């Protein structure tokens, strides 16, 4: 029974956006991927939720600046399992144009495990949707392995 439910669960990914010091370019693209009628992401069952406790797929943008690092980690810990992390843009992985800046730390992968990466500066809304679809596949694989209630 739970197996059957786990098959249906990835059809409603709820998305939460974390801006880890980004320039807001990727945030604009993430907003357009859901809200405007042209790239309607609600067809896939997605919904942007206002609370990290409700989220399944986390979209992180921006290099992890020093000032925001602790807060991002706190918010990330609030998201319940099973969760999938999607890095939007090149900043979370390598720092992008802001690499070697005085306030930019190392890449996010040192703190938060990144599951899917969508390169681009900023990536196209369609590319972000591809990233969400890949995240749903990763989520499905995790549910089948049985990593549901892992703390």
């Amino acid at each position: 029974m739970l197996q059957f439910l786990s098959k249906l669960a990835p059809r409603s990914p709820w998305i939460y956006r974390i801006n880890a010091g980004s320039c807001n370019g990727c945030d604009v693209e993430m907003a357009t991927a859901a809200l405007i009628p042209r790239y309607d992401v609600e067809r896939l069952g997605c919904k942007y939720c206002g609370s990290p406790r409700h989220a399944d797929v986390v979209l992180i943008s921006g290099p992890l600046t020093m000032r925001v690092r602790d807060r991002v980690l706190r918010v990330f810990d609030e998201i319940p399992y099973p969760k999938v992390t999607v890095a939007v843009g090149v900043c979370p992985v390598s720092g992008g144009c802001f690499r070697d800046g005085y306030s930019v730390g190392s890449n996010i992968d040192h703190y938060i495990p990144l599951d899917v990466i969508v390169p681009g500066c900023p990536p196209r809304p369609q590319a972000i949707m591809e990233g969400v679809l890949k995240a749903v596949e990763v989520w499905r694989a995790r549910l089948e392995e049985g990593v549901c209630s892992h703390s």
Partner: protein
Amino acid sequence: MNSILEAAFATVIFPGGLFALALGLLLKGADRKMLARLQRRVGPPLYQPVLDIIKLMTKETLIPHTANEVAFRLAPVLGLTGMLVTAAVMPIGGVWNGVSGLGDLLVLLYLLPIPAMALMLAGGASSSPYGSLGFSREMCLMFAYEMPLIASFLAVSVRVGGTAGSVLSLDAIMAYQLQNGPLLFDPVMLPAALALLIFIPGTMGHGLFDIPEAETEVLEGPLLEYSGPLLAVFNLMSAVKLVVVLELAVALFCPNPIGGGIVGNLVWHVCKCLVLLMLSVTCFRAATGRLRLDQGFSFFVKYTSPLALVSLGLAVMLR
């Protein structure tokens, strides 16, 4: 014994329980789909709320360690059971005449605020500042929208009672309408119908009145700390509340069946609920933003309650 069995059947299977859950989720899905079409989007499939509930069952439950755990877990359960009982006493024209002796406007007046109370309990038990903000907003708004509700209840009961005084039983209201035609076509009751139409999005928290659970202002208010199965119960409670409120409006103003046997009348009832949903909730959500709390309060006090009170006054005068 018979009435206990009848009440149990009503609460668990029809029209409360499974029927209300199914209808509620279907109405919510239809609302999302219609909203998307009004915004020129495609929108999720109709059964999307069911998938949401299933997904929430597979998530883990996180409880803040400073929260009151008993109240935290109890709030959604209280809300859902209250709503299921309320759905059980709703009459459906031509199909179900309500649980005998329990379908009373006063009882409904006590049962209808239960989901708001559950949300407030949840906000208070969450031990988060956004939770308490949502608590106070919900309480303030509840005071506001109870006013047109009570006024239109009184208007309907005085109108139906006529010279015999006011009638509070839903059975009698339905019988009156089956005899004299729906109250919707009665020009005296039209302002009260309008007031009830505005009450529906107010109590559901959509459109202009998306105040207690404002996503961008208080980060989902009372529901901020909920995750997993508890949030699923809250979603189910919201779905059954939608059914209850719509069925109440239909029962008070146009419960007349269409005469096609049980199945035909049921389908007609669902169609009426759907049309009322589109008019009151979906168009509101698509067209309007969100009011401030004081603006929402004064909207109900300044514009909605006078409508219902006009109806009440006319009904009293023309008794």
